[in-house]
């Protein structure tokens, strides 16, 4: 295993977003704060999801996790598409790095960006409604696994897409609906039966529900079920990403 090589690629991928942190970290934090201000203000007195938990408090973990997931996905996918389009992926293709090294570095950097943005959202929003830290280990576990899975999904999307508009299709028609139907803004039990059922097919729902469990100690489903589903999704998506990297899908003719 070429550890120096893997570490170099990881560091390069982190530097890539960090050099434009205003756009890749600060901007998504601002977006999440806007959601909180508007939805929190309008709905605070009208919606109560968990007993004794205000709507703003309920919303904060959802927004944090949503930011983690979206930014983890955006990092690996946009980095790959950019490198493919500008042609500089050739420097990586002629290197001796294995598919494991590519995977570790791209997903690793996606996790770092996701967690940075998530932490940023948490640090800014926590002043609006200080959360309880009921079962903090779930916070860590679901943030890491969720970011990892979306980083791997971004890798798959980045390998598949040849252009930015194909990337946008993936983002707008898969990632966005899955995020919004995951219970970021509500408990899925407030939805009509069909949409409840659909939401239960969505791995994002289990990520957010498990993550929220860490703050409030209550959740829609058992955190162990969520862990099993999110873990299995991570393994499945990673398996696809590794397979595509190994066969050189759209990379090596």
């Amino acid at each position: 295993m070429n550890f120096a090589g893997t570490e170099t690629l990881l560091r390069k991928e982190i530097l890539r977003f960090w050099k434009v942190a205003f756009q890749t970290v600060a901007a998504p934090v601002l977006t999440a704060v806007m959601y909180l201000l508007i939805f929190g203000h309008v709905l605070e007195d009208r919606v109560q999801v968990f007993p004794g938990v205000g709507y703003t408090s309920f919303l904060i973990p959802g927004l944090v996790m949503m930011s983690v997931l979206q930014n983890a996905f955006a990092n690996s996918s946009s980095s790959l598409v950019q490198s493919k389009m500008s042609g500089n992926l050739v420097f990586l293709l002629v290197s001796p790095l294995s598919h494991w090294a590519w995977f570790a570095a791209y997903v690793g950097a996606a996790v770092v960006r996701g967690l940075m943005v998530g932490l940023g959202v948490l640090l800014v929003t926590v002043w609006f409604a200080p959360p309880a830290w009921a079962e903090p280990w779930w916070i860590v576990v679901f943030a890491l696994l969720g970011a990892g899975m979306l980083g791997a999904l971004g890798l798959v999307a980045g390998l598949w897409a040849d252009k930015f508009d194909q990337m946008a299709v993936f983002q707008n028609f898969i990632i966005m609906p899955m995020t919004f139907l995951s219970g970021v803004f509500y408990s899925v039990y407030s939805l009509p039966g069909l949409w409840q059922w659909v939401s239960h097919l969505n791995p994002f729902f289990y990520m957010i529900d498990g993550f929220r469990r860490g703050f409030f100690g209550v959740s829609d489903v058992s955190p162990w079920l969520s862990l099993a589903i999110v873990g299995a999704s991570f393994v499945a998506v990673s398996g696809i990403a590794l397979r595509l990297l190994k066969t050189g899908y759209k990379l090596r003719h």
Partner: protein
Amino acid sequence: MPAIAFQQVGKTYSGARGPLRALDGVSFNIERGEFFGLLGPNGAGKTTLISILAGLARATEGRVQVMGHDVVADYAAARKSLGIVPQELVFDPFFSVRETLRIQSGYFGVRHNDAWIDELLAELGLADKADANMRQLSGGMKRRVLVAQALVHRPPVIVLDEPTAGVDVELRQTLWQFIARLNREGHTVLLTTHYLEEAEALCGRIAMLKQGRVVALDRTSALLAGTASTMLRFKTDHALPAALAPLARVTGRSVQLTAHDAAEVEALLGTLRGAGVKVEDLEIGRADLEDVFLEIMQGAHA
């Protein structure tokens, strides 16, 4: 063990208009320490062959080895032995020249490489650009960085895919002096170029590709000796007589005709005089690689 071994390499692309045979049974070796030229017209398969060597493409059949390492089964060792200067002028806009080189070095598992990076920067005239962002560099400067990136892990085999396309005279000189020095120090060099005078001056041995097949493979001197060795060159404003027109290579006013011996030269001049063609700047010279190249490309019907 040769530096590079191509064994029956074939490549078929599946295109919209049916399969395209880019390479067909290409076999030859490049020995260690050689300065080897790979020539051929556009679409002959040069870049495909180099892509397979570098792992950017996969051969449909056959195998390729670099320093004894198979480029598929043992890709990590094969790629560590190779330094590729790609044809396209590509760069990563997020980084400076020095960062670019440190990153490339790191990919190959080489840390703490600043002494060699500084030497590369100095040799390629990039020392004062070390901290400039890649976006700020001119085309020629970007090309130099590509060369430095290819050499940053000190590969024993260097592959230059048309490195002087669109490059000014000064950089060509700097580049060739540096590459020639590396070659003297034992590096194997594989060069593809459209500038045949460069290939003639630099390469000890040459392979010519046409439509995916090797149509010539020999020492440069043998290629030059083995062909019609005399060329008649002149300038004229007149149209050539019908008997000579298909044999001539015409560039504007300049005309070149092949002549194998003195009698043929006399016959050609006689025909020209008979047709009333007024000839200026007449010279008789040895064939150069361009003549050999054209003769082989016209003669080889793959």
